[in-house]
Structure formats: C-alpha cells, structure tokens
C-alpha cells in the first residue's frame, strides 16, 4: 500500500463520516461542521491521488482545484452561518425540528 492509497481511502472514510453526520445530527452548526468534514474528505482524496506519479512530482492541477474548493467551502460556511444566525434571532431555535415543532405548537 502506498501513501496515495492510504490517504485517498482516509479521505473517503472522512467523507462518509461527514455524510452520516449531516443527515443524522439536527443542530445547524453540527450540520455545517459535517459539510466541512465532507469537503475535507474529498480534498484529501484528490490530493492523495495527485501524488502517485512515478517521477515524484505531484500533479498541480488537483492542488489548484482544492485551493478553489477550500475558498468556496469557507464562503459557503460563512453564508450558511449568517443564515443560521438570522434564523436563530428570528425563531430562537437552531434546528429544523425545533422550528417545525414550535410552529405546530403556535398553531394549535
């Protein structure tokens, strides 16, 4: 087994851990954390496999892709956190379930 394979599979596992977290945890912040974890998993996969050239030079194209990806991820995180903060200020809740339950309570 080479470093490339080790880290690419690590990346896949990190991605799946994040995916499970995204679906299963309800708190918005935890969901956003999970999305970031998923992203990191994908990036690790890309960078690991960029590093398996026989001449020892890593392929710079995936590096550029990951740099772009990290910046997009931080933008997404900032955007969703701003949304979450607004939602929290308006409803006092931090998950879809809580807001939904509250809504039903108000209507009854």
């Amino acid at each position, binding site marked *: 087994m080479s470093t490339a394979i080790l880290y690419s599979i690590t990346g896949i596992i990190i991605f799946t851990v994040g995916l499970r977290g995204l679906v299963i945890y309800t708190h918005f912040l935890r*969901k956003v954390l999970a999305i970031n974890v998923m992203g990191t998993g994908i990036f690790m996969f890309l960078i690991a496999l960029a590093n398996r050239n026989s001449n020892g030079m890593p392929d710079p194209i995936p590096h550029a892709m990951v740099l772009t990806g990290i910046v997009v991820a931080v933008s997404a995180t900032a955007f969703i956190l701003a949304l979450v903060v607004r939602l929290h200020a308006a409803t006092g809740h931090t998950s879809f379930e809580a807001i939904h339950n509250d809504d039903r309570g108000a209507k009854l």
Partner: protein
Amino acid sequence: MTQIIASHASVWTIMLPFLSGVLCFMAGRRIGTLIGVVTAFILTILTLNLGVSVFQSGPSRYAIGGWSSPLGIDIHLDGLSVLMLGFTAIVGTCISMYAFGYFKDRKGLKKEKNKHYAKMGTYFWPLWFFAWGGLNVLFLSSDIFNIYVALEIVSFSAIALVALKGSVDALLSATRYFFLTLLGSLVYLFGVGFLYSAYGVLDLGLLETVIRPGMISTVAITLMTLGLIIKTALFPIHFWLPPAHANAPAPVSAILSGLVVMGSFYLLVRLWFETFTGVIMPVAGQLLGVLGAIAILGGALQALRQSRLKMMLAYSTVAQIGYMFLLFPLLAGNSIGQGFAWGGGIYFSISHACAKAAAFMVAGSIMYALGHDRIKDFRGLAQRFPIGVFAFALAGMSLMGLPPSGGFIGKWMLLKAAMLTGQWWYALLIVAGSILAACYIFRVLEITLKAANPGEKALHIPLRMQLSSLAMSFFAILLGLAATIPLEILKIDSPVFFQSMEGFIK
C-alpha cells in the same frame, strides 16, 4: 471535434452579467435597475447573434487564456448550449422587465413596507445577474471542474435570492435549500475527483474520447448523477423545492423554477448522452424514469391539494421535472425513437421554463395587488385582472400540453418516443399527468371566471409587470407554433441520432 475559434462574443455573454452585477452593487438601486434592464436586452441581442453564428458556421470552441483544453479551460458552443443560452436570455429579459416594475415604490403602501421593497430591489439585481452569469458559464463550459464552480455560483445566488424577503419562512426554506444543494455539489465534486484521478483530464470533449466502461467510470457517473438529481429536485429529494420556490418574491420564483432547474438538468443530459454514452447502463435510465414517473403523479396530486397559487405552481414544477427525466429511459434503448426522446426532453424543459416563469409572474402580480394568493378568493379575477388571467391561461395551456403550445410539442415528441421504443406505459403516464395538470390549472381558472362581487374594481398592477408576463406566456405558445427553429438549432452537433427526426422537422 471542431476547432474553429469562436468569436469573443461568447466571452461577452458570460462576462457581461458579472460585470453588470458588480456595477449594480456599486450603483445602488435606482441606477442599478437601469443597468440591469439595459444589460438584459444587450444580452438577448448578443445571444441571438451567437445563435445565428453557430447556426451558420457550426459548433466551435474557444480557449480561455490561450491554453487549449487539457491544460486550460475551453468554452464550447453547440446547438444545445446555444439553445439553453438563448432561452435563458429571453426568459431572463422578461423577468428583468417584471422585476423593474415589481421592486418599484408602490402607491398606497406604508413607507416602511416600501423601504423593504427598495432594499430588496437593491440586492436583487446583483444577485440575479450573478445567477445569470453562473448559468451562462455552466452552459458554455466544457470543463467539469469549472462547471462545479459555476454550479456553486448559481446555487449561492439562488439561495440568497430565496432569503431576500427576510421572513422566517423564507429563511427557513433558504437554509434547507442550502444544505441540500451543497450536498449535491459536494457529491458532484467527488465524481469529478474520481474522473480526474482515472483519466487525468477535465475537459468534457477529451473525456468522451478516453473514457472506458468500468468500475471507476460507473462510480463517477453515479456520484455526479446523484449530486445533480439532488440539485434538480427529482423525487425523492424534491421536498426542499416547493417551499423555496413558493416563499420567494415573484421574480425570484420565476428565476428558480424557470432557469435554475434547467441548469442542472442540462448538465445531466450533457453528461449522460455525450460524455458517458458508452458507460451508462439502460437500467439506470429506467431507474430515473421510474423516479420521474412518481414525481409526475405525486407532484400533480400535491399541486391539486394546495390552497395557495404559488405553492401549487411549485408542486407543478416538481411534476414537470418528472417529465424532463422521462428523457432518460426513452433514450437509453437503442432504437428509432431516440431522436424524439432527445428533442422532446430538451424541448419540454425549454417550454417549461417559459410557461412556469409566466405563471409565477402572474401569481406574483396577483399577490402584489391582493396581498395574498389563496386560490379560493380568486373570484372575479378574470374581470378585475384580464391580462393576467389571459397570460395565466396561455401558460397553463403549455403546462397541460394543449396544442399549439410548446409544452404540447415536448409532450407529443416524448409520447411518440415512448410508442416507437415500445414503452407504452410511459405514454399512459404522460397522458395521465396531463389530465392531472389540466385539473389543477382549470381549478384556478374556473374560480377566476366567476363573476366578481359588486364594488370590486380592477386591480392596480404596473403595466411593465402585466406586459412582461404576457410576453412570457406568448413565448410559451410561440414555441409550439414555430417549433422548427429551436429544433434546427438543437440539431447542430447533437450527440444523438437526429436522422430519425428529419421528417418531423420538415
């Protein structure tokens, strides 16, 4: 592959929206609105021009930065991309005209409320032009990673537009939309990662030449399809769409249902039938077909149950997305009907964009004047708002698939494809879905045609809004009357089998 260098016009169609988005942000609302409307018209002229040049000299590529494809990123122009570009421009111009009226100061509103609309108007323009620019990047790019960035631009601006209203409902649906669409793009990106690590190229055209069936290719196309299905809101991941589309301001609903949906669908079609043709197994197409079938029936039934017009239209979008996905099973089999399936699916998505945008514009106008969109209180609307109801009826014809609308042509071609490939159950489904669509459209029209209560006057709605929705719905009908032109454009460098359609076009 054609190597004719395209003119710089294709770059301008991509960069002009971004440029004016930036200018709108700098200039503020008043000047920003003017910049917006002017840009929309210039863009329409530019894309029509581009369409003509592709029509005359065939498909072309353009190397950005002068480094052509494996190293750099290419723009490619062919029939499909030019068609998408053109209809985005037409729908976009109508929406821009509509928004021009929608975000204006309103008479008879409280000062505070007006201020709210003014603020919304300030941010609407830059966000809308970024969405437009992102779509243009998506349609023209031939690089799968570049497309990922474009998808993110489109979704971020769409989410910001949904949240623009600032109400709890809007924020909530924007948040839900956000999580799902981000999940979709990440899964897509993973697919891109697999492709690059296996083949070492990102260009769609080059991939087409090097791709081989096998484990990696199957995994990659599965991931990319999953991601794009989430983004297109096909059943069973459709639940985020109706609240997001219904809670947004009217021009935004039109943008989302008309254009944003079309973007990810376009990409899926291109991947399946150009790049991955050799990899796709027919059973996968059937799977998408089944999901589409459930979406058609479920979406239409849900639409029938809605009491609010915008919610009804949003569920109708879910059903119509189902129709678009019928393209996949009908094309997967190798036979004579493929030309009809291909043309029908694409045609359907275009005419849906026009019709649904028109319908949402009318719904927005009604909300603008009445302050609500409860269908049961629409009594007498045909007398009080004749242009709107007329436009809604025209758009409805296309949604139901009545001749001579664009929706009719799309459905007819899909129907023909279903018969020719011997999958008659899809034909039944198409007919059943149309009947259900007729039910929910006529339910609304019936109430509006009832006599108005005495003393109710005509609605006061800015002329710009009325005319732009009318123009949009005329387009939906015109697509049925002049079907040859879009189909001829679609034929240019088309991946599939248009020979079988020759007779139909002429």
